[in-house]
């Protein structure tokens, strides 16, 4: 039982981080959104597994709620934003070339491993051993926001950061209260909606969602 639980947590953590790396790796916005949905599923799996392990119905419920939000609603919204993009603009052109950004990503992950070591050694349990992965995803999300041009990929990066934070919360404090998580998720939802609106506005103003275009606004 405990071994399968540990394996499940390890697997989830691995998938969680893997999805993060893949998001840095891929360019097409559609696959970014799909990967984000995967990551959401992995995130939802944390409280789910925990809940089953501790026979805690609330946690399982949280897991299901998160799954419906992160795998269902948010990707759907983002997919709509992508669909509105012109065909030739559906590749998020990163500011760094892929190889370089992959190197950066590797550095970030290793850093995350290194800095989260004391955290893990505080109380080395199965759940906390997965914290480095969650922290790595936070850093990766920030990096994506820094290095991508399109508004949608910005949103993806933002959601990665949130995923990472939520995962850290679940893993360190075995499950945050349901209401807190729901509140946080609501904020995220609003943020994404705003970003969606922003994207639409950008497209109307510039016929493009390249955020570099915003520099045009400076002198106005």
């Amino acid at each position, binding site marked *: 039982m405990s071994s399968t639980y540990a394996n499940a947590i390890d697997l989830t953590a691995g998938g969680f981080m893997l999805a993060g790396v893949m998001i840095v790796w891929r360019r097409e916005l559609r696959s970014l959104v799909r990967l984000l949905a995967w990551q959401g599923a992995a995130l939802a799996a944390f409280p789910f597994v925990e809940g089953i392990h501790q026979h805690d119905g609330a946690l399982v419920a949280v897991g299901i709620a998160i799954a419906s939000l992160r795998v269902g609603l948010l990707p759907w919204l983002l997919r709509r934003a992508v669909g509105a993009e012109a065909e030739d603009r559906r590749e998020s052109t990163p500011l760094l*070339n892929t190889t*370089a950004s992959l190197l950066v990503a590797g550095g970030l992950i*290793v850093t995350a*491993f*290194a800095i989260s070591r004391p955290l893990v050694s505080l109380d080395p349990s199965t759940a906390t051993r997965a914290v480095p992965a969650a922290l790595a995803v936070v850093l990766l999300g920030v990096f994506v926001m820094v290095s991508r041009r399109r508004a949608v990929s910005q949103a993806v990066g933002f959601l990665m950061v949130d995923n990472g934070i939520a995962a850290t919360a679940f893993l360190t404090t075995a499950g945050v209260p349901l209401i807190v998580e729901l509140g946080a998720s609501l904020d995220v939802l609003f943020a994404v909606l705003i970003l969606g609106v922003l994207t639409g506005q950008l497209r109307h103003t510039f016929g493009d969602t390249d955020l570099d275009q915003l520099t045009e606004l400076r002198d106005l």
Partner: protein
Amino acid sequence: MSTTVDVAPAPHTTPEVIAHPSRVGAAVLSGGLTAALGVAGISLGIAGLFHKVASVHIGWLVPLVGVQLNLDPLGGLFVTVTGAVAVPVGVYLVGYARHEHLPRLSLAVLPLFVAAMLLVPMAGSVTTFLLAWELMALASLALVLTHHRRAEVRTAGGLYAVLTQLGFAAILTGLLVASASSGADTFAGLAAHLDRMSPGTRSVVFVLTVIGFGSKAGLLPLHAWLPRAHPEAPSPVSALMSAAMVNAGIYGIVRFDAQLLGPGPRWWGLALMVVGGASAMYGVLQASVATDLKRLLAYSTTENMGLIVLALGAASLLSSVGARDLAAIALTAALLHVVGHAAFKSLAFLCAGAVLAFTGLRDLDQMGGLARRMPTTTVLFGIAALGACGLPLGAGFVSEWLLVQALIHAPRGGDSTLALAMPLAVGAVALTTGLGVAAMVKAFGLGFLARPRSEGAAKAREATPSMVIGMTLAASVCAVLAVAPVAVGPALRHVLDTLSGIAVPNTPRLGVMLRLPGAGSMSPALLAAALAVAVLAVIALAQWGARHRPEPATVPLWACGADTLTPRMQYTATSFAEPLQRVFDDVLRPDTDVEISHYAESRYLVEKVAYRAQFTDAIEERLYRPVVRGVLAWAGWVRRAHSGSVHLYLAYGALGLLFVLVAAR
């Protein structure tokens, strides 16, 4: 590629041209002397490896301290390696010098150079070591400047002189600090009074010596002389420098930083690993895009030295966390790689020399088709290349295997530095191996296979007997190391005994089957045998249905329907390396330009497209230029003090004297 260099001595395509008899005598004399020194070195070194050599003290030779010579197993190993390189070079030189008309001076200096290199590891005291070191440096400089009429040679010589003297200064300072603070001149004394040195002093000495020895071993960032000087020197000299002299740098690091000062704090090992890994990857990257054969080999030297230093660093790091058996594995890897590299690199340079002598070519873009015209040299270079790329059946395989084993078996879950350093090191070694193979395939495939791409290549002849004999000697050593590292097992064990400060001796067991202290074993000999059997089995299987086959036929190449393929339609070394250059654009920063010229009638008709890619050493560009500029500025500032008036100069002198007197009161 614009790294092409027209070679000063024109290739002698007519065998009748025989040099002046006295010159022949000089060549034979110099070659024989070198080979004899080599034999002496080997015998002396082997004696030293097994503690058979008493130490010698010659008081009258140098005032105050005298010359202290003693040979322990560590020195013995390096003396043996140098001797083993000198023997084939000496034999080879007989034919080469006659053919290439080496000037008498070089012929005279060459044995001296070998003697100096043999002396360095025998030195038993700081003074003796420094003397031998400087002698070696000056001799090699004289040899580099053999063809000093060519501008490239002069610039290379200048760069070499500056860097090697800077390195010497660093070593000098470091060793003087060491012997001053410990109050001892002999190495034994240093080791005995190590406690008199404060950790800070030891670290200072470490940094200074690593800088100095690193510059000699061609490590980043002081490697810039190596890819210039080694190609410009006559090939036997390149072989000696690239296979034996660089080892002196490694010897210095092992002797002083591992044995006498070590075991040091953790960051020593980390520093060595960083320098080594960076050198390995940078060297192999430059080698994989180089098109000048000797330049490629020189960069590969940087790569291999980097791997060795990486192994040394890993050993020191591992022993600092208490994994002394793994440290022993890493040390064995380093020492074995020193031996293997000496074998295959000397062979490679000798082959390159043969090619240069009988085709006048160094540029891979213009070679090709040598396999038909100089078959023996081709086979021998193939052996060298196999060793250089660290594949099974190669002389470099076992040492790289040991290195990786030491890296991946490091204690886990312990401290973060180890858990960060080891994976990165494994990645560096893996990437180095991969790119090294690409570089060596380029050197062999485009240099020796395919069809000749120039006059010189088409007119190639096989090397003269003595050259072939010399190369074959080196090749046989490569073969032995490739399949039977057991041959050097006992020697390495004795060396490890002298390094017991950082490593537990007697591990790993280099038998026919390589066994590690933990689980894990590998057998190059069995591997080779099994591969041979498998290939034979496949050939036998391929005979299935042979009786139904029509007669074998030799047909023209498939030219996509056209009648002929001209040699110009082949891939060149530049085009071969183009994808890799594209991948590593950010590191290499090549300046490439494509110029398209049109016909006069219409600019829609392209007459010719010229592609040029030039690789300047990025580090040299970015690191050296500013330094040089700074030095010049400083010199300009100093010049102000020079009015030219003698009285002023006398005043300076008087002031200086006064100051000294006051200070020394």
